[in-house]
C-alpha cells in the first residue's frame, strides 16, 4: 500500500491489518510517554484546502506520536489564495521533502490527481475530497464498531448498520459503505429522496426512506451531519420536519436493541439530526470516535511510511 485514496482500495486483509495495528497503537495513549520513535526524520504535510478541526488535529497528533515532523498547510492565508494551482503547491511540497501528504480538498478526486500525476514522490492520504471519500473516517468508525460490538478483533460479519441523513453530500457515507461491506457488515442508507445520491442503487447496500422502519434489529446507527454549506437548493421543507423524520431522539433510540450504539462523524448539529439527550447518552460514542481516530491514523501513517519505500532498493 503506497497511498490511501479510497476505502475501496482496502482488501479485507488490508483493512484488518490497519485495525489490528491501530489496536496495538492505542495502548501508547495509556502510557506515560505517549511517543514512539518509528517515523523519526520523516515529514508529514497536512495540506488542507477546506476547513477542518478534528481531522487535521487528529492527523497532527497521530504523526507527532510517531515522531514525524508535521507541517500544517492551510489554503487560507497561503499562496493558494493568491491563485496558486494544486500542481504548483504539490511541487513546492515535493521540493521541501514531504514523505507523506495528507490532503483535504473541496474537489472530489484531488487526492487521486495528487497521487497519480507524478508531481510528488511521497504517499498521499485522502483526508476528505469533496463529496467523494473520507477513508480514515470509515476506518475509525469500523474500529469503533468492532470495539463495541465485536470485542475488538476480527471482522464485522453480520453486523447491521444504518447510515442516516445527508448521504448526497457525504464522503463519510460512501467510504463507510465500501469499507463496512468489505468487513462483512450489512449497511442500509436512510435519507429523504432528495438527499439520496444519483446511482445509489449500484452501491453495495440497501436503501430506505423511513427511519423508524430501519431501526429495528440494528447494531449501530450512524447519523450524518446535514451539510448546509453544500446545499444550494431546498432539499427538505424545514429543519423541524427533517428532525422529526430523520433525526434520532430518545424515542427512536428505544426502538433499537439494548446493545446498539450511535455514531456521528462530527461536527454535530444538535437538535437537527441528533437530539441533545441522545448526543449525551451513554450509547453515543462520539468522543470515543475522536480518540480512535488518532489510533487509526497512526496505523495508516505507520503502514504507509514505517517500512521501506516501495520501489527503492
Amino acid at each position, binding site marked *: 500500500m503506497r497511498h490511501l485514496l479510497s476505502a475501496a482500495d482496502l482488501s479485507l486483509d488490508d483493512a484488518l491489518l490497519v485495525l489490528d495495528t491501530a489496536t496495538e*497503537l492505542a495502548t501508547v495513549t495509556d502510557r506515560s510517554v505517549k*511517543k514512539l520513535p518509528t517515523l523519526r526524520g520523516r515529514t508529514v504535510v497536512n495540506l488542507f484546502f477546506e476547513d477542518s478541526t478534528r481531522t487535521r488535529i487528529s492527523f497532527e497528533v497521530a504523526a507527532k506520536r510517531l515522531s514525524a515532523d508535521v507541517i500544517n498547510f492551510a489554503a487560507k492565508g497561503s499562496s493558494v489564495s493568491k491563485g496558486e494551482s494544486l500542481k504548483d503547491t504539490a511541487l513546492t511540497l515535493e521540493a521541501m521533502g514531504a514523505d507523506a501528504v495528507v490532503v483535504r480538498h473541496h474537489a472530489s478526486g484531488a487526492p487521486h490527481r495528487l497521487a497519480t500525476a507524478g508531481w510528488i514522490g511521497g504517499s498521499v492520504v485522502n483526508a476528505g475530497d469533496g463529496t467523494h471519500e473520507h477513508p480514515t473516517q470509515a476506518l475509525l468508525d469500523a474500529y469503533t464498531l468492532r470495539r463495541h460490538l465485536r470485542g475488538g478483533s476480527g471482522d464485522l460479519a453480520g453486523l447491521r448498520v444504518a447510515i442516516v441523513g445527508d448521504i448526497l453530500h457525504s464522503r463519510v457515507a460512501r467510504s463507510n459503505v465500501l469499507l463496512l461491506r468489505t468487513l462483512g457488515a450489512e449497511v442500509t442508507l436512510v435519507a429523504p429522496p432528495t438527499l439520496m445520491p444519483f446511482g445509489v442503487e449500484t452501491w453495495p447496500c440497501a436503501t430506505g426512506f423511513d427511519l423508524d422502519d430501519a431501526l429495528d434489529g440494528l447494531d449501530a446507527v450512524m447519523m450524518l451531519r446535514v451539510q448546509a454549506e453544500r446545499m444550494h437548493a431546498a432539499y427538505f421543507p424545514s429543519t423541524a420536519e427533517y428532525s422529526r423524520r430523520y433525526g434520532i431522539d430518545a424515542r427512536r433510540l428505544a426502538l433499537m436493541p439494548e446493545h446498539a450504539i450511535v455514531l456521528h462523524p462530527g461536527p454535530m448539529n444538535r437538535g437537527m439530526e441528533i437530539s441533545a439527550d441522545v448526543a449525551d447518552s451513554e450509547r453515543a460514542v462520539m468522543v470515543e470516535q475522536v480518540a480512535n481516530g488518532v489510533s487509526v491514523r497512526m496505523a495508516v501513517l505507520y503502514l504507509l511510511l514505517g*517500512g521501506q*519505500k516501495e520501489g527503492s532498493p
Partner: protein
Amino acid sequence: MDSDAPARAHVVLDDADIGRAVRRIAHEIVEKARGADSLVLLGIPTRGVALAERIARAVADIEGTDVPVGALDITLYRDDLRLRPARALEETTIPPAGIDERTVVLVDDVLFSGRSVRAALDALSDVGRPAAVRLAVLVDRGHRELPIRADYVGKNLPTSLAEDVRVELTEVDGVDRVSIWGEPR
C-alpha cells in the same frame, strides 16, 4: 516442510534439554534477585513470550510466588524498519502493576546481533523506569554487533554467520526443539 528442508540441519537441544535450561534459568533469576517479589518477566514476541511464561511457572514451583508476565513488542523501535516493508505489530501487554521500581527480566529465544535487545531497552524506557533490567535467552549464538550481553543463557551455541539457528516451542510451533541449519563450519 521436512521434504524440502536442507539435509544439514541438526538438533542441538531437545524438549528435555529445553526444560532443564528453563528450570536452571529460573533458579538463577531467583537466586540473583533474592526471591521473586520484585520480579517482572517480559517476553519479546513471539517465542520470548512463551519462554517467559515457562520461566514464570518454574519460578512459581521454586518460590511459590506468581511472577507477573508480559509481552513487549519491539517492532516500532527496530533500527531496520526502513530496510523492509512495514510489518504487522505484535501484542504488547504490561502487567497491571507496571514495571516501575521492579527488576525486569527481558526474555528472548535467540541472542544474535543484540539489536532486538537494544530496541527492547528503548521500548522499556518509554513504558516506565525499572529498578534493574536483566536479559535471559534460551540460545546465545554470538556475533554481537552492539555491546550487549545476556545475564542468563540456556545454551551458548558458537555458530558461523552462514548458519541459521531455529528455536521451536510447543506453544508456537507444536514441538520443542533447537536446531542449526545451513553450512557446517
